[in-house]
């Protein structure tokens, strides 16, 4: 399977990763190679096979609804690129 420029642009948007114009051909070629690898799955007969999400077929564990972690906002925000007054700062969203 061979990906074109439009598909790479779409994938770039889905993944929220900018792809520069000069990179498009190489990205398309390498992604296409990986999709060729995926095509090996087509021939396998999977009729009646249940998809497997967890190796031991475990289900989500439940716990009592009680407070565990305490507020650590200051500590956690020490690694943030930009904060003010306990808030994370980003470029203006609403005009």
């Amino acid at each position, binding site marked *: 399977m061979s990906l074109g420029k439009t598909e790479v642009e779409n994938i*770039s948007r889905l993944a929220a990763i900018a792809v520069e114009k000069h990179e498009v051909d190489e990205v398309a070629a390498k992604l296409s190679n990986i999709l060729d690898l995926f095509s090996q*799955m087509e021939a396998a007969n999977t009729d009646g096979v249940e*998809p497997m999400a967890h190796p*031991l077929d475990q289900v989500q*564990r439940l716990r009592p609804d009680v407070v565990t972690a305490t507020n650590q906002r200051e500590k956690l925000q020490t690694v943030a690129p930009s904060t003010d007054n306990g808030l994370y700062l980003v470029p203006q969203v609403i005009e």
Partner: protein
Amino acid sequence: MHNLTIKQMSEKLQAGEITSVQLTQHYLDRISKYDSELNAYVTVTPELAISMAEEADKRIAAGNAELLTGIPIAHKDIFCTDGVKTSCSSKMLDNFIAPYDAHVVTQLKKVGMPILGKTNMDEFAMGSSSESSYYGPTKNPWDHKAVPGGSSGGAAAVIAACLAPMATGTDTGGSIRQPASFCGITGIKPTYGSVSRFGIVAYASSFDQAGPMTRSAEDSAWMLTAMAGFDERDSTSLQRDAVDYSAELTNSLKGLKVGVPAEYFGEGLDPDVETLVRAAIAEIEKQGAEIVEVHLPNKDLAVPSYYVLAPAEASSNLSRYDGVRFGHRCDNPKNLQDLYERSRSEGFGAEVKRRIMVGAYALSTGFYDAYYLKAQKLRRMVRDDFTNAFEHCDVIMGPVAPTPAFNIGEKTDDPTSMYLADLYTIPVNLAGLPGISVPAGFVNQRPVGLHIVGPYFSEAKLLNIAHQYQQVTDWHTKTPAQYQ
């Protein structure tokens, strides 16, 4: 001092013949001397190491030490370490000082193991050669032209070169076992869910599993006992009683049924690797094991299935790197979308971007059934192959990788050729089974490992077999000449 076994180190520490400070300083000195040529450490933490060693010495003096108290350790840079940079070998996290400890780090701190530093790896654990690190490739101590394997390549290299006596690793598609094989050390990936994933930077959560990387199986047994156990902070942590993984080490191998899958000795396997692996199996047969032929017919479907599922999980897990709460942020973003897209484009390396994009594509509208759902069905077929095989044998043996360590740069231009080199390790992750790599000889001065895979929760048995093999062989004791 670095040529002692962990048991000998521990005995000398307890007897007061050496102190943890002396032992830790010895390794720090070796790191200063040798690591510039190997690039196995991303961060070295001498002050932390010495202060932890001082605490360990106090504990030993007070008489309440455990077996591993005072033995220094290196953590893969994927484990969060409170107050210490945790980069996952990515530019994205180059400025990230972890605000808490991973569960594994907490467990080993409790035991009193001084932290020497953080080891190099493939960026976000995505790779099989440690070449995709933002900090440059790690070299194989046996041959500086060769890769150490990956993604836990730094961890394997520090054990092989005696720049740490013990190291942690993680294994998503072979990332403990393949570098262990390439560097001639022992490394075990436990059953999925045995070791908590809390505080391990996530790659593919339904596969990621941490384990020990050490010289011998005996060392791994003790370290795994300290690492494993239920942790309520990991939603997939298994609720089981604590296990002593060293309990079966000295058991006899008489009557052990070893399954040898024909499919693991087919096309693509280096004939010299095959000779060594078969010789290792013969050695185990000599100890009273019985060899039976088994079949894993869906082996070839494992690699494509894994490279759909793991990138799909990665595309979701790595969406947290958005330039807002932590990690790299681009300069002068035009708007929020530009902030996301450029921060991620600048912060991630080529292979990580490829896997996120492939994963996003596989999960996108119109492709989900053909890729993700199909891969999940194949995952069950691969798991069922093992279940069927284990009806005829106790463990399965074969190669870890089709070749010894390849050269640095040899596979970097062709990502899919790198993927295919994981064909023996990936099925084990798909099934969530435990597997171990045990040093089994050399091809052209490059080490080769024997792969032993067992049913769920058979870690103690795998370590028993590896330990018995290491009683009659000395491959695991070899050190490259310049690091002796």
